[in-house]
């Protein structure tokens, strides 16, 4: 079949800039074939090459004694003792989810699960961070239903508990929702599988589902802004099959146990191209592929289509040849395709053949290593304006506004669509800070949380970046887990605009500083840029997922507040109302600076909570909505009223950082006071859990009334 001629239009349609095309000519010394152009476009798009972000990603702290493998592989690997490791990553599927919410979100979950089991880990927990447009926007309802059902549809069938996540609404996401999916798996630390191929003449094996035309060009689509032609991009969204993924996972783990695998890579963005090049490049080898051997779902597929297909549930592996029969038997048992489609070669060459014809012949190491890298111009985000005068509000009215807002009401409607109990190791259901699963068959547990406050990041990228890490750190400490490491999913607008690049640079500075100070290195991550529609960017949304360990001899903090418990506030309250939830929900004002983050205080206060867990019945971190919302949520969870003595609005609703609310009995409160004095941790009694009313600063409402608002608001908007 003849391939189209290379024209300027064709180059532009592949998302390649004229100077990038010149670079291709320079590298290969001739005009590329159509298939080769497709391969370059797949390797060099923003999604795969990180060309705008690489410079800044290098500044992040990525190492520590707990880190077994940092960024660069399919997922990060962290030591959890006893020869075991937790493997995790978060990745975005924003553009596909906006175009086709169910399949976009479902395949986002599928992709991240594959990243985890490709490394030899059985997935044990999933989370997600979702950002939607205004609840009143005509598209939001359909997106919420589709995305939530897609996440559930995939994860529930696959059989991984979805134990946490975030759901937020802001008109900045009207034209560009965010779907960030996280997965974590468990493996023996000495049985992790990496992507570097080794050995010449080793068979390259294709595993899993067949290749179809779905997703051709998906990664390139994800690297462009949206406009009114978006509906035309629907065919670039892949279709997920969790049943095949489940079998692929079982077969892959079984295969790994046979010792047949030299290296393995999942086929994600730009499928066959990226996986083959990655394995060859990391092993310093070339790769030859014979495309007629690729299992195909459709007749008449071209080399171009096969190299760029993003069909799901596929893997590429370099096999120990003597184990072929054994390996094939495993895949036949699970009724999956197993085909030798090529081999490793000694020359630095990526040779793609189709029915004996050369379709691509490129220098592999250069193809992989020569993606453009940009030092994009950036402008520092100007300091936020001073916060103006705020009229006082009745504290109960303020609380009612929060608990009935789609942003702060209960997310039960969402979470109950996710199976969070499969695997029978879930200790803490989603919805209350961190989710917790047991490490099966041990006394240990792992805690997971996902956090970011985009309006803080917009007002002050540096402090906002720090805050995302600090809140994740607090959510882990609040359940008694020691924070180990983080993964980030950096969602921003168009990096070619200096003010957007400035948000990115600022946020990374903050994230880097916080991860270093709190000893939670970033071990994996993903960048999603160009989240803009018709030139309007989303709120800068660097999602941080953190993983913490509860040791075998430690108890998680899982209790609820009870009648008679004392309410203790850990940490300092200045009364910071800038960019606060109360300001947005009651006054419809988005103003002021983000709350400053004192990393020293975060660390000290977090360690205090963990060290004194024996005196703590229930604990939550303070974030959006401050003391008032935290006290209400704790009361609602415990089914007991609460009285907070404070009358000042800034004290009640301020969003100062490094704070926790603790419930415990009187004797325990005394013990905590003494311990706090010794540790130099600010701690004071702010009220009591008692009765059936919520009382803030002398004003009361029945708990049941507030709880009903809290539980039913989400369903009222979207049910």
């Amino acid at each position: 079949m003849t391939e189209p001629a290379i024209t300027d239009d064709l180059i532009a349609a592949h998302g390649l800039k004229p100077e990038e095309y010149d670079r291709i000519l320079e590298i290969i010394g001739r005009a590329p074939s159509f298939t080769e152009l497709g391969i370059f476009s797949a390797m060099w798009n923003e999604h795969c090459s990180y060309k705008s972000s690489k410079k800044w990603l290098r500044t992040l702290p990525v190492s520590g004694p707990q880190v077994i493998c940092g960024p660069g592989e399919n997922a990060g690997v962290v030591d959890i003792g006893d020869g075991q490791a937790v493997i995790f990553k978060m990745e975005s599927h924003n553009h596909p989810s906006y175009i086709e919410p169910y399949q976009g979100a479902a395949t986002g979950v599928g992709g991240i699960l594959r990243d985890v089991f490709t490394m030899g880990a059985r997935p044990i927990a999933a989370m997600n961070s979702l950002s939607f447009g205004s609840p009143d926007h005509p598209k939001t309802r359909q997106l919420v239903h589709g995305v939530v059902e897609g996440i559930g549809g995939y994860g529930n069938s696959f059989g991984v508990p979805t134990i946490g996540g975030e759901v937020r609404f802001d008109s900045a996401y009207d034209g560009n929702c965010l779907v960030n999916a996280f997965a974590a798996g468990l493996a023996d630390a000495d049985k992790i599988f990496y992507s570097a191929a080794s050995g010449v003449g080793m068979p390259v094996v294709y595993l899993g589902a067949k290749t179809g035309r779905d997703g051709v060009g998906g990664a390139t689509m994800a690297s462009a802004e949206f406009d009114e032609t978006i509906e035309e991009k629907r065919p670039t969204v892949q279709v997920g099959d969790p049943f095949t993924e489940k079998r692929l996972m079982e077969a892959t783990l079984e295969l790994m146990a046979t010792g047949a695998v030299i290296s393995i890579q999942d086929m994600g963005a730009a499928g066959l191209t990226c996986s083959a090049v990655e394995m060859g490049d990391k092993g310093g080898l070339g790769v030859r592929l014979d495309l007629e051997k690729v299992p195909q779902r459709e007749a008449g597929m071209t080399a171009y289509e096969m190299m760029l297909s993003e069909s799901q549930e596929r893997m590429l592996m370099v096999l120990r040849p003597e184990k072929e029969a054994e390996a094939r038997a495993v895949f036949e048992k699970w009724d999956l395709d197993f085909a030798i489609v090529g081999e490793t070669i000694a020359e630095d060459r990526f040779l793609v053949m189709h029915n004996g014809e050369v379709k691509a012949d490129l220098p592999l190491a250069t193809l992989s290593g020569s993606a453009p890298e940009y030092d994009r111009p950036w402008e520092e985000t100007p300091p936020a304006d001073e916060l103006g005068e705020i009229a006082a509000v009745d504290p109960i009215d303020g609380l009612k506004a929060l608990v009935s807002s789609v942003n702060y009401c209960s997310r039960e409607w969402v979470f109950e669509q996710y199976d969070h109990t499969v695997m029978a190791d879930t200790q803490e259901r989603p919805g209350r800070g961190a989710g917790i699963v047991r490490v099966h068959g041990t006394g240990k547990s792992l805690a997971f949380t996902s956090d970011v406050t985009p309006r803080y990041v917009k007002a002050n990228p540096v402090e906002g970046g720090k805050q995302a890490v600090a809140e994740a750190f607090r959510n882990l400490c609040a359940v008694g887990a020691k924070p180990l490491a983080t993964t980030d999913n950096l969602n921003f607008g168009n990096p070619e605009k200096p003010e957007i690049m400035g948000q990115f640079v600022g946020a990374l500075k903050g994230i880097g500083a916080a991860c270093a100070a709190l000893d939670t290195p970033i071990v994996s991550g993903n960048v999603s840029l160009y989240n803009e529609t018709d030139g309007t960017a989303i709120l800068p949304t660097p999602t941080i997922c953190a993983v913490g360990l509860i040791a075998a001899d430690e108890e998680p903090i899982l209790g609820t507040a009870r009648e008679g418990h004392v309410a203790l506030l850990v940490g300092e309250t200045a009364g910071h109302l800038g960019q606060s939830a109360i300001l947005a929900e009651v006054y419809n004002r988005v103003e002021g600076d983000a709350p400053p983050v004192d990393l020293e205080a975060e660390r000290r206060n977090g360690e205090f909570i963990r060290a004194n867990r024996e005196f703590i019945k229930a604990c939550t971190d303070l974030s959006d909505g401050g003391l008032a919302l935290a006290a209400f949520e704790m009361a609602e969870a415990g089914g007991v009223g609460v009285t907070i003595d404070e009358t000042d609005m800034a004290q009640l609703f301020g969003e100062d950082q490094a704070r926790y609310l603790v419930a415990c009995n009187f004797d325990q409160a005394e013990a905590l006071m003494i311990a706090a004095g010794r540790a130099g941790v600010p701690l004071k009694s702010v009220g009591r859990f008692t009765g059936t009313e919520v009382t803030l600063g002398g004003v009361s409402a029945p708990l049941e009334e507030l709880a009903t608002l809290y539980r039913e608001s989400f369903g009222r908007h979207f049910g």
Partner: protein
Amino acid sequence: MRAAVVTFPGSNADRDLVVAFRNAGADVTTVWHKDSALPEGTDIVGLPGGFSFGDYLRCGAIAARSPITRAVIEHAERGGYILGICNGFQILTETGILPGALMRNAGLKFLCKPEPLTVATTDSVFTQGYKPGEEITVPIAHHDGNYVATPDLLDRLRGEDRVAFTYRANPNGSQEAIAGILSDNRRVLGMMPHPERACEDAHGLTDGKRLFAGLVDVLATA
């Protein structure tokens, strides 16, 4: 007591069921769906939760035609015990071992939450560890748990005291809030809720434990 837990390619709660049986003191073997025979001396077959073949058609419809299922039907015909949970219950209705059908939840959404149940009969090895009418809480996690039967069948199930559990707040629209039923010889139980996820303190719920404990107790001495 010997239990055999069947793994279909899309089963995802097979391990959980193995653990629950084992913790209760049973000897457990897992059986692959392509096997055609159950292990010698199997007292009870466990059909676990999950999405046996992706369940893109009717849930459990393809599993009902797996090689092992022939052996499970014969086991039932010989008077053997079977516990089918969630997808296992769906497979039991698809094979005809249990009557009725499980349709999409009335609200059309997947539902995962702790669910209050009533123990509707204690006259079975599965439920003899509970008090009559006892309220227990066991998690549900399903998309297709809406139990449907003809009026005649409902009369018969009621008349023969074969409703094992009912929902107190019928989350999925099941007729007569049925959450689990027994076979006419009372040796096969199909239920949508997951007792194996409510067996340990760490689960936060422990009401499922008595189902397994009672079962192992009775069958061990049978």
